[in-house]
């Protein structure tokens, strides 16, 4: 479980806190989507959970962040790295080797995964990320999307308990984005991996995440189930977060007094609502 209590963080050299008064409890097996406008503190929150903050990013740290009972201040980051894995926003910076296969092998060797297990893990990770054909390719010859998939493969091969992904579909086409989210859902449901995704594509989060956390200017604005968070669409829009178009439909029907139920979070639900309204009208 991840527990964040009264957490505030200000980067060294900055006067404005990147995060302020954050209280968040993430249960084992949760699938959390973190959304918010630019500068909301999403990446800082992700870095705090995987212990990059305070160990590698200096600044003023208040409150506490505990991951599986380990306080991120007192625990060496490598101990937290044994259960958490993070895919960073800047994929190029994440690469430590020059070939896709070696990139996956890097983490496995560091954690001393037995040699007889590595081949299977590499193959599975490449299959899961949908890039088995890129195994021997030089990383510098890959497109942004392919690199992103390689970075995800390198992380899932480590079989972490907590998976943190900072805009993992930023350079992916819509089809690949869905594939990655399906893979995350599978890891979450079948293997009990806690998934925390920072993402701008809110439609994908609504489809796959169990809960949403909305950040605005370093503060946690909303945290709850997708449906609960989307209930107040107008408030979200004020913070620069656009609701999915399907939610806009249900909210517009509500505004016109034609619908009173919960907000739609996917196409099927929106279709049902519209169908219901049409039938009632007839």
């Amino acid at each position, binding site marked *: 479980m991840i527990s964040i209590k009264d957490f505030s963080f200000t980067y060294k050299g900055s006067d404005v806190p990147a995060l302020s008064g954050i209280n968040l409890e993430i249960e084992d097996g949760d699938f959390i989507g973190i959304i918010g406008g630019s500068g909301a503190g999403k990446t800082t929150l992700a870095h705090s959970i*995987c212990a*990059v903050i305070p160990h*590698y990013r200096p600044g003023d740290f208040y409150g506490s962040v505990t991951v599986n009972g380990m306080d991120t201040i007192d625990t060496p*980051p*490598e101990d937290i*790295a*044994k259960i958490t*894995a*993070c895919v*960073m926003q*800047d994929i*190029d*910076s*994440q*690469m*430590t*080797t*020059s*070939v896709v296969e*070696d990139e996956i*092998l*890097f*983490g*496995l*060797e*560091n*954690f*001393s*995964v037995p*040699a007889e297990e*590595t081949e299977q893990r590499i193959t599975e990770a490449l299959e899961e990320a949908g890039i088995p054909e890129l195994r*021997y390719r*030089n990383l*510098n*010859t890959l497109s942004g999307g392919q690199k992103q998939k390689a970075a995800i493969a*390198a992380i899932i091969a*480590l079989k972490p308990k907590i998976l943190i992904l900072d805009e993992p579909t930023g350079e992916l086409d819509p089809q690949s984005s869905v594939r990655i989210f399906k893979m995350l859902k599978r890891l979450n449901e079948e293997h009990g991996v806690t998934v925390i995704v920072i993402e701008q594509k809110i439609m994908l989060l609504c489809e796959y995440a169990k809960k949403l956390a909305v950040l605005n200017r370093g503060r946690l604005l909303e945290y709850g189930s997708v449906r609960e968070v989307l209930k107040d669409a107008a408030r979200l829009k004020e913070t620069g977060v656009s609701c999915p178009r399907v939610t806009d439909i249900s909210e517009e029907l509500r505004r016109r007094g034609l619908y009173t139920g919960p907000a739609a979070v996917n196409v099927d639900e929106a279709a049902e609502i519209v169908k219901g309204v049409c039938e009632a009208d007839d």
Partner: protein
Amino acid sequence: MKGLLEYCRGNSFLHSCNPLIKIAAAFIMCVGCFMCSSLIYVLCVIGITLIAGYSAGVGGKVLKIFTSLLKLGFILLLLQIFFISEGHVLISLPFGIRVTAEGLHFCVLLALRIAGATLPLALMLMVTKMSDISGALVKKLHVPYKYAFAITTALRFIPVFADEMNGIIEAQTARGVEFDTKNPIKKISLMLPLCVPLLVSSVKRIEDSSTSALLRGFSLRTYKSGVKTYPFHLRDAALLSVAAVTSACGLLIGILI
């Protein structure tokens, strides 16, 4: 230089040799170039490297590096040639500047030596994965992993920074800066201010890369951690012998001349 120093996958003789032997052979060839002052010998070393490059399927890239090094060598030749006045005068220029046969020989030798000493190392990088270099250094020589990793990361970042510089130049060109000028002084003056953004982005990239490595258990690694082994084979002895014989010939010619 885009992509020229990057690893090229293959199954050639050179690809299959032990990484440590490849490093050793490349260094022996380099040393050979500096032990002999015969132009023909240095040309032979370059020739052997080119043949080895073609046999490994990277001949075109080795040739490209050779031509780039020749351009660099030509600039050095121009800088040096006017400062050596000993020997038979070939051309007399105003202000007492003379181009002598000895000066010309020295400068051509210097330019070729740079090419001859660099090409084997470049070829070695093209046929060896960085992870194998660091892995072999750790497994066979027991070099601490963090040092081996630092060496290979430094090598890996050469093409990365070259790409970054190209990106900055392209961005500036899109804003109307004329980098395709023929005037080298103007070109240098245009490129110098770009070193600052390159430095800033490079430092950030290195910092992020080290954080990423640490988050993937970098500090937990020991020399036993790697799954690959790097045994020595007969082909390694053959490669080392070719390099040693070539270098010995250079030493012998150097003594005889």
